[in-house]
């Protein structure tokens, strides 16, 4: 029987970060709880935040369950995490700048060339280009799990356009509206500085050719996209334009936005569309979402695209194994955050181990996401394991495996009252003139008892995440 770290209770004792919530939990009558839960749901519906987190697909109109029980970190816990996250975000950016430049890490033999240059996410089109401040990934979402008081592991890095930050902001907003007294009794670090910090970050990477206050725009695929709410929400909070490809055009080496007062030059594009769709002249010729000629403008320094096309080569699951190596190579530091030990099925020895230990392991597709195409050994039936064994044997390169982690639990409101449920965490690190991290993030919770899968498409919910002030 695996022991799971409970973030609130150590045996019968309440751990210090949660001391402010113990009474609140015990004193809340069931009727009040039901009322508040209904109120929260109504609020979420009204603001229209119903999209699937992390582009997982599924019904875009479905509400993601919100659990009112906050997840809490102390200041010292957070500081430690923060250092590790910033370190990782810096290393990932150094890696990107390097592999689109001279590729020193490959020359030094620290990462196999094949893994980098044959990677589907490696964009030859940006090779040799140094974006403003040398930054490729301006918003790095790092998915973390906790297994003990001091044990955190990075599950994956998201260097392209990690979504879900609107949940971090809305969860807090709604908690403050429903339980104002909690925020008077506990000193909780605010997260509402995020939109400003994001705007500052984006403005700080405006091209050298921009000689005034930079104009920033968020490029969305449109309202049919599952994360459209987040795109328009962030544009609103930052006070920047929300545009679709058809609203932009290129001329004279710059990118322009059509407005009622005529064309307006755009300096920084925070794009929420995939690389393949950015520019039909450079990538997928059938893309209707992008802007023809945008890559030529980008490469000649007329506009900055955030995150940079090609940033995805750093967050591939096969590259993930080498992130600690990146920290050592580029920063000369020891990694503060640990990776989950990972077996690469592409390696014969690893493959043998994985096939021999399937019932204990979590097996993932290298390019998969959203908890699909994944085997959780301990929770799988014999048939599921055997089916997966064949899939792995057919195409070992496509799979990696990791031990089943004993994900921590936090108290969660369930039918019967309050019960422990497994959680993960995604903080959003901003990389521009400064490397910044808002004290908080998105906590996802597996609402099904015993489940370790926190993905919203598979019964996951979200929580407000607190960092206590000192």
């Amino acid at each position, binding site marked *: 029987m695996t022991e799971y770290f409970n973030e609130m209770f150590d045996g019968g004792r309440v751990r210090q970060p949660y001391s402010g919530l113990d009474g609140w939990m015990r004193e809340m009558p069931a009727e009040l709880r039901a009322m508040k839960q209904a109120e929260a749901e109504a609020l979420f519906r009204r603001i229209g935040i119903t999209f699937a987190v992390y582009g997982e697909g599924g019904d875009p109109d479905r509400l993601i369950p919100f659990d009112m029980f906050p997840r809490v970190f102390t200041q010292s816990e957070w500081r430690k995490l923060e250092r590790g996250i910033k370190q990782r975000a810096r290393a990932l950016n150094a890696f990107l700048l390097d592999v689109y430049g001279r590729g020193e890490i490959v020359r030094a033999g620290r990462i196999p060339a094949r893994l980098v240059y044959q990677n589907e996410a490696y964009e030859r089109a940006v090779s040799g280009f140094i974006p403003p401040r040398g930054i490729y990934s301006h918003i790095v979402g790092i998915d973390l799990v906790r297994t003990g008081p001091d044990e955190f592991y990075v599950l994956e890095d998201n260097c392209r356009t990690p979504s879900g930050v609107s949940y971090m902001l809305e969860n807090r907003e709604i908690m403050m509206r429903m339980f104002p007294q909690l925020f008077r009794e506990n000193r909780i670090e605010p997260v509402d500085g995020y939109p400003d910090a994001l705007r500052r970050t984006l403005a700080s990477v405006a091209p050298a050719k921009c000689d005034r206050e930079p104009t920033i725009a968020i490029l969305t695929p449109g309202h049919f996209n599952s994360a459209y709410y987040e795109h328009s929400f962030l544009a609103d909070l930052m006070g920047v334009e929300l545009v679709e490809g058809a609203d932009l*055009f*290129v001329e004279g*080496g710059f990118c322009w936005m059509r407005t009622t007062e005529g064309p307006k030059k755009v300096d920084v594009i925070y794009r929420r569309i995939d690389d393949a769709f950015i520019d039909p002249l*450079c990538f997928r010729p059938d893309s209707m979402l992008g802007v023809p*000629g945008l890559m030529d403008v980008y490469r000649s320094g007329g506009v900055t695209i955030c995150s940079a096309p090609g940033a995805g080569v750093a967050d591939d699951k096969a590259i993930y194994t080498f992130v600690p190596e990146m920290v050592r190579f580029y920063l000369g530091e020891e990694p503060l955050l640990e990776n989950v030990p990972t077996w690469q099925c592409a390696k014969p020895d690893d493959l043998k181990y994985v096939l021999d230990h399937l019932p204990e392991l979590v097996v993932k597709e290298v390019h998969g996401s959203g908890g699909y195409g994944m085997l959780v050994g301990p929770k799988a039936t014999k048939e599921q394991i055997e089916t997966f064994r064949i899939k792995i044997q057919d195409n070992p390169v496509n799979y990696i495996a990791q031990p089943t982690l004993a994900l921590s639990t936090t108290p969660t409101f369930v039918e019967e009252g309050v019960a422990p449920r497994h959680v993960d965490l995604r903080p959003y690190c901003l990389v521009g003139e400064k490397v910044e991290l808002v004290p908080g993030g998105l906590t996802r919770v597996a609402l099904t008892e015993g489940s370790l899968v926190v993905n919203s498409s598979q019964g996951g919910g979200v929580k407000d995440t607190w960092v206590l002030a000192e």
Partner: protein
Amino acid sequence: MILTVNHVTTYDYDAPMGAAVQSLRLFPSRFDGQRTIDWSVSVEGGVKGGAFRDGAGDRVEGWSIRPPVEAVTVTVTGQVETFDTSGVLRGHRELVHPMAYLRETVATWIDDALQELGESAVEGASDMLDRAHRLSSAVAEAIAYKPGVTHTHTTAAEALTQGEGVCQDHAHALIAAARAVDMPARYVSGYLFATEDGAPHEAAHAWAEIWVEGIGWIGFDPANACCPDERYIRLGSGLDAREAAPIRGITQGAGEERLDVTVALEQLQQ
């Protein structure tokens, strides 16, 4: 050899169109095999956009034309002095790792026949250079030059099955066969000065380059069973014809497009 180039590309539309945007790779590469004396690229009625040299060493220029667009005319004129480097791309500055050219594309998809062609071609080869030469010969033998039987979207596999094609098909097939035996290969677009021997090939030409460890990129032209020499002018490269296209463009609108290309290469007598 000093070659003069006159290259005019016209896209005509049967109805007025919206804006046109182009990305041009129409500039002679900088390497020991050629020296640009004079070169100009212009787009009639167009506005010049951003220009840069990419990681593969190609100069790229963006252009746009405001609507309504009835025709797009791209004119290239220039003079280049060329030298025979036995096909070796010597003195070419580029940053892209050769391994990035092992990736397959739709046009260079390796089917069983191409895999087989690649493997049997290199059997018994003495070294990497010999392998590359054998691959080029094998493709030249497998695909006969015949214009009009293939089109722009014909893949390497289709051309091989057909056994006939033009320079684009030869280049695609050679690229696929080389990648099949793990040799990085890429598509090169440029011009060929057709000499008095009456070779039927068009002056707008394409060939392949194969990465030979220890030497570097070497050009191979299976369509002419040779390596590029002083009759060739190299413009740009890519994973396949689409990526290496000297002109990539999009014109908004539903009108029918008619393409007209004239290329004239002449040798300047000294």
